[in-house]
């Protein structure tokens, strides 16, 4: 065992389906190799919510509401390298499909008109994070240092990006190792 201090990593899950985190777990036995080099701090996987000061922050999902934006800005302020994981973080992707509609119509459709709803109402409690008018990718809010495209990025793409970053290099995407889907 090396006595080098482990690199601290935090991950966050904004507006997305968690598929990118699932894909991260698809690293399978490579996770064991990764665990020798890094320490996972806050993450949906560890279920630790408060983001500490870390070396690498990995963010899945788009910014859909005020809480997403708050988490993203906190992550940015506490990490040295911020990695956008997956298409929602990069393009808005599926959450951004609602951008074509008015926000009030979207809420009405989801909470009142949806087929499975009986006597529903749009939630207005202050504890529920307020939806933003448009869903936006994270680089429109903060500086992003590395991107991992894909919906979700497959484990090989994640592994490539993570190992490159750990080696102190910027991942270089080519037609052979990148996908938008």
């Amino acid at each position, binding site marked *: 065992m090396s006595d080098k201090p482990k690199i601290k990593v935090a991950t966050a899950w904004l507006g997305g389906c968690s598929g990118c985190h699932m894909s991260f777990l698809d690293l399978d036995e490579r996770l064991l190799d990764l665990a020798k080099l890094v320490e996972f701090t806050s993450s949906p996987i560890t279920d630790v919510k408060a983001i500490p000061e870390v070396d690498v922050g990995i963010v899945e999902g788009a910014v859909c509401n005020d809480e997403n934006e708050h988490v993203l800005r906190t992550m940015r302020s506490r990490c040295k390298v911020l990695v*956008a994981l997956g*298409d929602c973080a*990069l*393009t*808005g*992707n*599926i959450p*951004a*499909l609602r*951008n*074509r*509609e008015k926000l009030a119509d979207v809420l009405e459709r989801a909470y009142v008109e949806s087929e499975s709803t009986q006597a529903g109402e749009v939630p207005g409690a202050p504890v529920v994070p307020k939806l933003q008018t*448009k869903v*936006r*990718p994270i*680089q*429109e809010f903060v500086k*992003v240092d590395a*991107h*991992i*495209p894909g*919906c979700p990025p497959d484990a090989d793409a994640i592994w490539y990006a993570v190992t490159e970053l750990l080696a102190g290099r910027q*991942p*270089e*995407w*080519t*037609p052979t190792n*990148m*996908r*938008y*889907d």
Partner: protein
Amino acid sequence: MIAPKEITLTIDGKACRGTQGQTILQVAGANGVEIPTLCWLKHLSPWGGCRVCIVEIQGSPKVVPSCSTPAMDGSAIITNSPRLQGLRRLTVELLFSERNHFCPMCPMNKGDCDLQQQGYKFGIDSIRYPYLYPSLPLDLSGKYLGLDHNRCILCTRCVRTCDEVEGVHTLDIGNRGVKNQIVVDLNVTFGMSTTCTSCGACVTACPTGALFDKAAAFHGPLVKCRQTRTTCSECPVGCGLVVYTKDDRIVDVFGDAESPVNRGHLCRRGRYDTWAEPRPRIRQPMVRRDGKLVPTSWGDATRTIRTLISASNDWQNAMLISPRVTNETIRALHGIGVRFDRIGAFVADKEAGICTSPEFSTDALVRLQDADAIVLVGAEPSRNQGVIAAKIRTAVRRRGARLVILHSRRSDLDTYADISVPVVSLERKFWKQVGDVLGSAKRPVLIYGPAAMSAVGVTILDRLIKTLSSAGNGGEMLAPIQLPTSTNSLALAAAGVEPVEDVSTWLAVQPLSFLHIVASDEPDGGARLLKEPHVRPLLEQIDNIVVQASYESELTQLARVVLPAAIWCEKSGTTTNFEGRTLPLQAALPPTGEAREDKAILEMVFA
């Protein structure tokens, strides 16, 4: 003609030859230098809109689009520099940011989208510009085509194809600036369009998922499909097809760009009618027992037919055959003909006149491609041979060819014609007009179809041939082009099979006791026979009718035995087009159920 001047230039340091007037992209392509493109398509006029093909010319501070910049003698071109790479990436990023390009929910995902491929090529892992997320409509009102403006990059490949290949100019660009949008006609939906012919050429040209085939959408990427090259069975033009199949079903059908007949273009019938329409198939042989058709084996069906035919006299046996059959099936008729008193081909309306004197115009398409005057007599390419109609439209609209139409029914081609009149007895005034319009024609083409075969029609045809022969060069007699309606009717006629136009008279010649109808893959299962006057009662009088067809129809209800026939994409062999070209048919799918090819069925049953 002066030969174009040869020029030499260097591209990326490589000495390249070209001719004056060629674009930088053409010279680069001819010399094996690849330049990325997006809005450019080989057979269309250059547009220069996407700016992906930009290059640097040494000594000039500007970058220029190589697709629309003429190559200059002695110039030095750079196609790949960090500056160009940066600009190309920027251009494609702006395209991505402009509309809603979400790859995971696009039918062209995973390999069929040029924009996605360019994104990968330029290593675009994120977009540095704010997304506009415009709210744009999706038009699914077309019968076969879908248009999703959210995925459009305004490359105008569809607009140019619609204008330059199909010649109808249904599509164009509307609005201004950032509100630019593809419009159908005067901004209506595809379903409302009066000019769209549903040829599907725009879908073939579209680099993204903006225009797509509804029946093919979300059935998997075409790049992963098996491709089979075959020949369209819908009309006698014989267009080349590429059939995309996956898991033994058709995903899509496109024109074969390699085909000398259609060069990748198709009409609605070839592109969609054959597969995007649900038609109930006959899947196994059936024999009538106690008044009901019951499924049975091939062996039993064959034995039943043999018993029926041996119980009847040869002079009471007849066969009616569809002109959609292959040349091989036609040849097989020779061997089995002795069993039948007569074999007739049930050709299209008024087509027998043409089929009695079959003539193959070997260079018809080349002449049409080059014609400066086109005369149509009694042919209906708009309805029956869409690719010919496209060639006529583009000849008129792009090359200024004169067009004279003597029609039996009006069609959209009349709009492009200098003169358009019905095929009736014509006055002196008409002939004066014709003389004025065609007088200066150097390369006239005369196409005549079934409706020209009336007494008046033939007289007009003769006089037109004389007029055009004196107008054309050299005073040589003009060879008119015969354009039948049915797929392989000329090959059937050339093989000596009698073309039957009036089925009721043909049936009534002698009372029949056995009639074998080879309907093959007639789209209506051969039911058009019953639409002719007096045919149904005559058929009802025949004790034993065998129907060999691909699709269920009213005709099968009259049958004693029903045999399942393979359809166009399940057939191998050859077919002969109106020019006399022998074109290959290649089975793209195994036959459905127990269906077999017509030739195999005839040989098995009557051998």
